[in-house]
């Protein structure tokens, strides 16, 4: 009995020692685990949102091919899916099904918090310290509780893309700095017989972004942060944002029948209207130039484009130089092979990021890659992003899908003249209980 117990103890000791040894070798020694990299053939499934024919779609294919050439054991299988479908339907369903893609589009914010809480994402903190350091604060949007779960390849603020020629024709000489300037310019453009602003209200979010920007102007940073983290929408600034939107809509700045206009698909979309000279402005993120490229007859970004940030709102209580923006990144799902992280690091390496900036599809996140920006409009956006007083992530992304959708629906109701300022706040509060 005594002997038996002793042999048991010895066995336990040996087993523990073996465990400790193996634990050390796999956890502490990175070279061993990375020597396992590229040994066995793996296929990485990659879902990105560059679904329309254009330079970015081609570029991602090239990046995948290049990586495969560098590491022949890694085959990359791409699915290009339209942003909204990807974000709202495909990724959640794939994560839920337990068979997600290895590498997929990630927008950071509240959505990423939900995904991390459900244990869907791979913690890449240890492997990506260099990359994060070279990106600055933008990378924080892809981190949850100090741990990195994804990396952005693109980050920029949104603003009005506009047609310089139409502005000149209407007698507008400078970019509007305040909301009153903007309203005056809208009046001038309408007098000249043009549609002032194209909005893709059919997709809901392009319309909702007007309200977001008014909310950023009206609300303090505390109010916005309470809304994101505590689902507290009681600050009166959110109602004021709706009132601002209503008085803005009263100037009838948009194209006719805008409820049926999509944001990005085809020449009759809001991006298509601006790209083809049928509207003078569009409020859109930094990707708009890339979108417009695919919507013109010659498949080139129009040369008449310029950009200005969302103007200040006189008398509003929030920060007037905080800009709203967001970016695009990728995250690896929890069960993805380690090669996924390596490929992600490759995507945000300065060389690949330089190539990305040359496509004109966005603003690179890695320092030094901005030299690749050929598009003067994107250079303007890059400078404005750097000089912004603060950055607020897109509100629907920051609030999460549940509140985000309810908010967008209520804002679209205002656009359709069927909703109220209070209605947006009510919808947000209601969504918290669902």
């Amino acid at each position, binding site marked *: 009995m005594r002997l038996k117990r002793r042999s048991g103890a010895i066995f336990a000791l040996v087993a523990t020692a073996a465990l400790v040894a193996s634990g050390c070798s796999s956890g502490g020694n990175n070279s061993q685990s990375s020597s396992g990299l590229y040994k066995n053939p793996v296929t990485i499934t990659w879902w990105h949102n560059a679904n329309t024919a254009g330079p970015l779609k081609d570029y991602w294919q090239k990046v995948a091919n290049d990586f495969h050439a560098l590491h022949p054991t890694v085959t990359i299988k791409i699915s290009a899916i339209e942003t909204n479908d990807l974000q709202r339907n495909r990724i959640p369903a794939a994560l839920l099904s337990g068979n997600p893609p290895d590498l997929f589009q990630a927008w950071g914010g509240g959505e990423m918090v939900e995904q991390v809480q459900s244990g869907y994402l791979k913690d890449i903190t240890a492997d990506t310290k260099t990359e994060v350091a070279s990106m600055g604060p933008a990378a924080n949007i892809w981190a949850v509780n100090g741990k990195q779960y994804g990396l952005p390849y693109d980050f920029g603020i949104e603003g009005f893309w506009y047609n310089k020629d139409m502005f000149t024709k209407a007698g507008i000489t400078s970019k509007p700095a305040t909301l009153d300037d903007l309203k005056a310019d809208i009046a001038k453009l309408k007098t000249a017989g043009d549609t002032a602003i194209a909005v893709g209200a*059919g*997709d809901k979010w392009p319309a909702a972004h007007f309200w977001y920007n008014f909310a950023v102007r009206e609300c303090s940073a505390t109010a916005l942060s309470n809304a994101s983290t505590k689902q507290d929408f009681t600050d009166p600034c959110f109602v004021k944002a709706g009132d601002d939107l209503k008085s803005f809509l009263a100037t009838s700045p948009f194209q006719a029948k*805008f*409820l*049926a206009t999509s944001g990005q698909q085809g020449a009759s979309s809001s991006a298509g209207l601006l790209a083809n000279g049928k509207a003078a402005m569009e409020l859109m993120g930094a990707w708009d130039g890339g979108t417009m490229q695919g919507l013109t007859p010659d498949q080139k970004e129009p040369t008449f484009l310029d950009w200005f940030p969302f103007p200040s709102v006189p008398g509003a209580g929030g920060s007037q130089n905080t800009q709203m923006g967001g970016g695009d990144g990728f995250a690896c799902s929890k069960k993805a092979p380690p090669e996924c992280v390596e490929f992600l690091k490759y995507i945000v390496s300065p060389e690949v990021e330089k190539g990305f900036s040359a496509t004109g599809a966005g603003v690179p996140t890695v320092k030094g890659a901005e030299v690749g920006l050929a598009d003067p409009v994107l250079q303007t956006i890059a400078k404005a992003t750097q000089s912004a007083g603060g950055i607020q992530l897109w509100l629907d992304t920051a609030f999460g899908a*549940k509140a985000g959708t309810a908010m967008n629906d209520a804002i679209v109701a205002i656009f*359709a003249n069927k909703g109220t300022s209070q209605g947006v706040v009510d919808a947000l509060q*209601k969504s918290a209980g669902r």
Partner: protein
Amino acid sequence: MTATQPSVSLADRAPARPAGPRPRVPGRAARTRRKWYEIIGLTGPALLVFTLFVLVPIGFAVYYSLYRWHGYGWPTEFVGLDNYFGPLGAFRDPIFRDGLRNNFIVLVGSLAVQGPLALGIALLLNRRFRGRAVFRLLVFVPYVLAEVTVGIMWQLILQPDSAADSFLRSIGLGGLVTGWLANLNVVLWTMLFVLTWKYTGFALILFLAGLANIPDELTEAAAIDGASWWQIQRHVTIPLLGPTIRIWMFLSMIGSLQLFDIPWVTSQASVRSLGASNTMATYMVEEGFNQRLWSYGNTVAVILFVISFVAALLFQRFVLRRDVDGALTRRAN
């Protein structure tokens, strides 16, 4: 009955055959058992598949609908029927009620427009004339096209200042032009138009098949008795086409209640979210998937199922009974 027959014949032949052991006739119990083996053997696989892929999912949908659940882990927060009737429940949401209303408008509209239209064309196409095959094909083509193709095609045609508007202007009806997909009071009727365009061909092909089964002798006899073409259609053809018309009504009704693809593809998300062109099915996907309200989406699915099921049962009971008597209900006499 069959059991007595052999014993009678055996008795008749008794003198011809020397006495021997009586041939074994399977007993009633054995035959009943065999019958049950056959029933189980033949229906078992189908029943298993049906249970696994129809009944069990329905059960799960009902189960999920009783919880507040966002799809992460196993549902734990039991809320009873709150998802149905609570303050945030489906029946209190005006957008869901709009979807329900839209479904019924489509249902009534489909029956009222497609049926008579297809019947008229079918009666015309049932006569012999040059180019009949081509004409039949043309009417049937929309039904063969994929729903999404049709949806996108009409979305492009109905864009502002696109094909539809230009056509109306060119024939002097420019005053009618409106936001076919943007005017909240018009969108549903636009959807109904597209659905009519697409599904009339389906009704037509059913009706033509039904007409082919009506013997020529009947119409010839009526013609000899001096009935006009119209009288023959009214009193001979259409009554004999009744079973076909009723089964088409049934399919159209269920299709209308479960309508999803055309409103989803052709009308914009904004218009649907305002209740102008949504259906119960599009609402289910938008709430369930887009808002990640999984249990709520299941609730809507259950409501949709119950409504379709009850409608189907009522239709079977009161309209289809004479057609399916014996096949689905009790034994025919």
